[in-house]
């Protein structure tokens, strides 16, 4: 048979491919070098966290929540413990609220730094990778000196945090915040201002505003498509309404903006951290919570702004010590859907950068 033009064929990418950032698999349909369609296949890291939650008590489930988005552990448990507190009507001590904000924002900075690092690595930029991970290491050191773990902290409790931070924590955090402007300038010079990075990422993989809203995209990816929406501002949880910060928004809708908005968000997180350090009071870090957590029957839906997108916790209690249902809406899981929508028409090497710009972490996609 004679073949006219290029034959369409399918390539399997992943689950062990290094640029899929975990165990993500996609079937890529190609016409020559041009991508005609992508089918995302997920579930390689599915642990059934929702099912596990039903056979564990409320306190026993906290360590599992850290394993969702393992690059920003604190924020996941924040959503869970706040949802349970809402259900039980628990007031959290002031100092614990500030410590929670500090840890959540440090987690966000760590996650965004890693996203920029791995994004640059996907276009063979080794230097930004080592710079970003070097600075992320300082955050992980802060986590380690407090909770003993570097990524999955298990630090938050229903009613507060497990213990106070050590004495050396505050000075170390202060010196990190002082060094941050210099770091950000460095990233800008080495990655965002780089000619190769710009030519590989600018106007590649456009996600228009209407499509983003229709696909239910949330988080920084939505803000890079021109929608100024942040749960921390729209529906402040914890004590986020006390801080003065901006919600950055970019209108380029492309891969470059989805990377660049993370850098802007790191700057805003620094503002929040500085204010939290200034205002943090002394006092207890744990409220009086009964040993056996037994929320009254009811339902609650609590949303938090995770670094990867919005995370929603729908907890249904039937008045016993174990929840009837814990539903986890993760941002990254819904955000996967933008890949087939924006990658069509781009070449296979662009697929890698577009994929990196979505900032997926498979622990959160697969639950």
């Amino acid at each position: 048979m004679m073949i006219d033009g290029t034959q369409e064929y399918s390539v399997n990418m992943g689950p062990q491919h290094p640029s899929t950032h975990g165990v993500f698999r996609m079937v890529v349909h190609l016409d020559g070098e041009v991508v005609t369609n992508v089918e995302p296949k997920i579930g390689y890291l599915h642990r059934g966290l929702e099912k596990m939650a039903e056979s564990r008590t409320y306190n026993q489930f906290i360590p599992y929540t850290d394993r969702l988005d393992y690059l920003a552990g604190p924020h996941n448990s924040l959503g869970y413990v706040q949802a349970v507190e809402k259900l039980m009507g628990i007031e959290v001590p002031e100092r614990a609220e500030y410590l929670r904000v500090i840890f959540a924002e440090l987690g966000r900075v760590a996650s965004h730094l890693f996203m920029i690092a791995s994004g640059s690595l996907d276009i063979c930029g080794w230097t930004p990778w080592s710079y970003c991970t070097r600075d992320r290491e300082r955050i992980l050191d802060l986590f380690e000196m407090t909770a003993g773990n570097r990524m999955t902290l298990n630090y938050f409790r229903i009613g507060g945090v497990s213990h106070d931070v050590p004495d050396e924590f505050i000075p170390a955090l202060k010196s990190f915040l002082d060094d941050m402007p210099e770091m950000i300038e460095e990233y800008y010079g080495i990655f965002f201002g780089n000619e190769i990075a710009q030519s590989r990422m600018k106007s590649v993989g456009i996600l228009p505003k209407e499509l983003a809203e229709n696909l239910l995209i949330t988080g920084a990816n939505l803000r890079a498509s021109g929608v100024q929406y942040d749960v921390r501002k729209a529906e402040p949880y914890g004590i986020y309404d006390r801080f003065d910060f901006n919600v950055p928004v970019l209108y380029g809708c492309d891969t470059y903006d989805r990377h660049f908005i993370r850098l802007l968000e790191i700057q805003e997180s620094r503002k929040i951290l500085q204010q939290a350090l200034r205002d943090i009071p002394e006092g207890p870090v744990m409220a009086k919570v009964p040993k056996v957590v037994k929320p009254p029957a009811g339902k609650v839906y609590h949303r938090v702004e995770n670094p990867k997108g919005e995370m929603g916790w729908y907890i249904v209690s039937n008045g016993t010590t174990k929840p009837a249902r814990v539903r986890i809406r993760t941002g990254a899981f819904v955000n996967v859907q933008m890949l087939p929508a924006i990658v069509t028409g781009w070449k296979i090497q662009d697929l890698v950068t577009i994929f990196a710009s979505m900032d997926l972490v498979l622990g959160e996609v697969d639950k």
Partner: protein
Amino acid sequence: MLNKILRARVSELADKVNGQVEESLGVLELTINYPYVLEVLTRVKNFADVPCDFLHDLAGMDLEDHFEVVYQLSSLRGPQRLRIIATIERENPVIDSATPLWKGADFLEREAFDMFGIQFRGHPNLKRIYMWDDFEGHPMRKDYVIESHEQRAVMRIRKEGE
């Protein structure tokens, strides 16, 4: 103020479709029967002044005698929030898909299908999303039996032996 308008709109809608309005922890909750779901979602999405036009979450729920599909709605342009609960019978769980309204409901519905076996009528690609294709059963159902690791290993050996 906004809450008042939303409450008025929702109770008006509830009368039309024979639903119940409740409020739990500050969020309005509308419980309806499954045949009305597409009509209700379309109306809610196009409410004047208080459109609940962002489907935040779609989740299945097993209540032993029936299933529920829970829609968490909000808006990117206002503080309005609404929860819609559609009840489905357990024997034949079929409900209209929300994908004509939001393309992004695709994965969420596939997950509910995978975990609960709820069929979404009109979904473009209703396949399992987490579990593999020939997996048997729907793990999030309350009557799903979790075998022990040893038991599963024995079953696997038997199956391979056949």
